[in-house]
Every structure is written in C-alpha cells, then in structure tokens.
C-alpha cells in the first residue's frame, strides 16, 4: 500500500472523553505522536444537557477541556464540537452559544489555535442542512476560531450522507462573515436559527452522495445546485454578503 500513513504535515486526532476525562488509549497514541514530533489535534465535544448540565456550565467545561488539550496533552490545536443532548447536533442555538462563548473567551486571553466541527441535522441536498452549516460557520468565524472542520450532515451517522457541497457553503459563509461586526453577525445568526430550529424534531433526511453527485465525474447534480442557490439566497436575504 503506497502513501499509507501520515506525514509530518498532516494532523493526528485524539479524543478526550466527556467530561474532563481521557483513557489510556488516548494517552498512548499521544505519547507516540509527541515523541515523533507529529502535529496533534485534540478533540473534545462537550455535551449540552449532559454531566455539566446547563448552558454556562457546559461553556465553562468547554474552556477547561480546551486548555487541557494544550496544557496536559501536548496538542497543537483543539477541535471543539459542543453537541446538543436531545438533537445530537452542533447547530442548535445552545450549542452555538457554548462554542462561541468558549472560543471568544480563549481567543481574548491566549494565542491558542481553535477549531470546531460540524454535525447538522439535515441530510445533503436540503436547505436546512446548508443553512445549519452556514450558521455555524458564521458563528465560528465571528468568535475567532482558526479552523472549521466539516461537515457531517445527517448528524454524521448515516452511511454516505455527506458531500463536498456542505463544505462549499461552510467555506463561503466563513469567507463572507470574516471581518464583519459581531453585532451584525448575531442578527444574522438569530434569523437563520428561526429558519431551521423547528426542523430538529423531524429533520429532512436528504440524499446520499451517489444521489447528489455523478459518481464518475464527481459533479453535483442540477437538483443539488438549485438547492444550494436557494440556501445562498436565504443567507443573502438574512444579511450575509455570501458569494452567489
């Protein structure tokens, strides 16, 4: 097998456990990568509604676990991902608030490199999935994060229900949001939440990669491009100057 294995310019990923825990598997992997001088991304997804309980407590725990990635585990950057215990998404208002408050707090007091990951409820080829992804990208960009990682559409649990189109809107929304006033972004975020929050009860399942793309040419279908255009128009109407 050629080209197997990571290079020094790739990143290894190790997960903490919820909350403020790490097991021996994690420590042993970290020890090898640290000795090799590899790039290490330490992940932790605090659970809103879990052991910590409420909104502010979860954000406090998020700050603590982020600091631990660097102070205890030799991480180069931290991958966050506050997750909602009921909806299993990162795109709900509460999980966006936890992520944004934790990032802003750490950004204001350190030079640590902060990332976030994406678990929207909607499946590919749905407006809800694209709006959720864009809204988190606006939130992460506005709160000072350095890297956005996604997107695991359909909550990241359904086989083949992820595509490059979700990454396109994540990137374009981030580009549009970068440099805008936070007060403006907050207005846009609330407008977008009102467009999709009610969908968490029964999110649209969307389509598989094979249904969203021509698998031979790896080109998105006309249907998905039309859904994408519709979502972009909603974002523009909400006040985000995203590229059309």
């Amino acid at each position, binding site marked *: 097998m050629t080209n*197997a294995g990571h290079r020094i*310019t790739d*990143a290894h990923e190790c997960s903490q456990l919820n*909350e*403020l*825990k790490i*097991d*021996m598997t994690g*420590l042993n992997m970290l020890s090898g990568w*640290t000795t090799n001088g590899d790039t290490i991304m330490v992940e932790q997804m605090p659970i809103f509604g879990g052991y910590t*309980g409420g909104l*502010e407590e979860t954000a*406090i725990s*998020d700050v*603590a676990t982020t*600091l*631990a990635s*660097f*102070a*205890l585990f*030799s*991480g*180069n*950057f931290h991958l966050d991902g506050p997750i909602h215990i009921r909806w299993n998404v990162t795109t709900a*208002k509460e999980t966006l608030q936890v992520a*944004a*408050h*934790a990032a802003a*707090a*750490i950004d204001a*007091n350190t*030079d640590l*490199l902060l*990332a976030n*990951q994406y678990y929207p409820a909607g499946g590919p080829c749905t407006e809800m999935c694209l709006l959720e992804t864009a809204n988190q990208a606006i939130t*992460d960009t506005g709160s*000072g*994060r*350095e890297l*956005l990682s996604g997107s*695991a559409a359909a909550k*990241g649990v*359904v*086989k*083949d229900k*992820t*595509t*490059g189109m979700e990454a396109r809107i*994540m*990137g374009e929304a*981030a*580009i549009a949001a*970068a*440099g805008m006033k*936070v007060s403006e*972004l*907050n207005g846009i975020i609330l407008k977008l939440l009102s467009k999709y929050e009610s969908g968490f009860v029964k999110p649209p399942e969307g389509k598989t*990669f094979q249904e969203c*793309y021509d698998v031979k040419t*790896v080109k998105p279908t006309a249907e998905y491009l039309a859904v994408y255009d519709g979502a972009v128009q909603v974002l523009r109407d909400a006040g985000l100057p995203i590229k059309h």
Partner: protein
Amino acid sequence: MPRSLNVFDSFDRFSVGKKVREDTWDYVTIPKNALAMKEKYDISFGPEVIPEDDDLSDRLFKAGLEMLAISGFYNPNLGKALSVTEDEILAGVENAPRKVKLGRGRERVSCKPRRGNSRRKPIIQGGPTGAPVSEGIFPQMMESYAQERVVDTLVSGVLNTVSGRPSTTNTPWEIQATLAEIKYVREACDRAGRRGMGI
C-alpha cells in the same frame, strides 16, 4: 512560572493521582465544580450567540481555568484524577504552538491566531468528519471535497468496510481500514489536482 507538562508528565500525575469512582466524577465532581465556577464568576449568557461583552469573556476564561485546576483530569482506566495548578496550565498555554503548517508544496496552509473576527478567513477543513462511507465511493466522495476551491485541508470519513470486511473497532481490520482511508484520501487529492493537501 513552572515548566509546562507533556503527555508523559500527565501520565505520571495520573499514576500518583487521587482515586475517584467514575460515577462520582461524572455525577458529583463535574457538575458541582462547574456550578461553583458559574456562581463565583457570575457567568450568565444573554440572547446573543457570539458574546459582545469582553468582561464576560474574561470571566469565562478564568472560570474555565479554575475549573481545570480544582477538578484536575480523570483517567477511567486507572480510576484516578491528576492534579494540575493554574500556573502549570498557563505555562502550557504559553508554550503551545502559535502556528501550525498543514499540507505540502502549493497546498500548504498556515493556521495562526485570527484574534477576534479578523478579515482573514479561518482554515477550511472539508470532509465527512468521521461519518460512515461505503468503500466503493470513498475516493470519489473525498474528491468532492478536495475539488472545492474554498477547502484548504481534508478530514476523512470512516470506511464502513475494507476488502468487504467490517472495519470493527479494536480488530486488525480497523487498522487496515484506517490505512486504506489515508490511501484513498491521497488518491482523491491527486484526482482533484491537489497533491500535497494536508489531511
């Protein structure tokens, strides 16, 4: 300021740490300490998603720092919690890298602090983020991310099978699947004309 800890120091701290039952950690230590920090630092969020109150951000940072210092960290295999001081945590923060380079050649990107909502966009890492993917379409799916101009680096999905065998956790097939994922991701970069992308 004391020296910062590395992962080996952390293991040594776990080894001599205080014995704690895991359910006590989960249901007593964590919620009790988080609530105490919320009250001590008067942390209360308003309706906005991104905070606009700098003082709140500073208090939240102090609360998180103290949360880690008073709780320590738990290792369920050892059944022990390590201890770390605020000064040691801050030393680790001070020694953390301020820049990470990902990828090679013309695909190399540099991840460095943005400081607030800078006009400089974040690094965009595209991919299924650990979602399950069929073996038959894995390279094509990864190519769909690599071909996006806004995508700087890739994050892999999880191969559902490898050579038709389930990539079950803690089996040799899991290792085979992980290496196959990397091979397929590199193939996807080549097909998109972006050899050298960081993964």
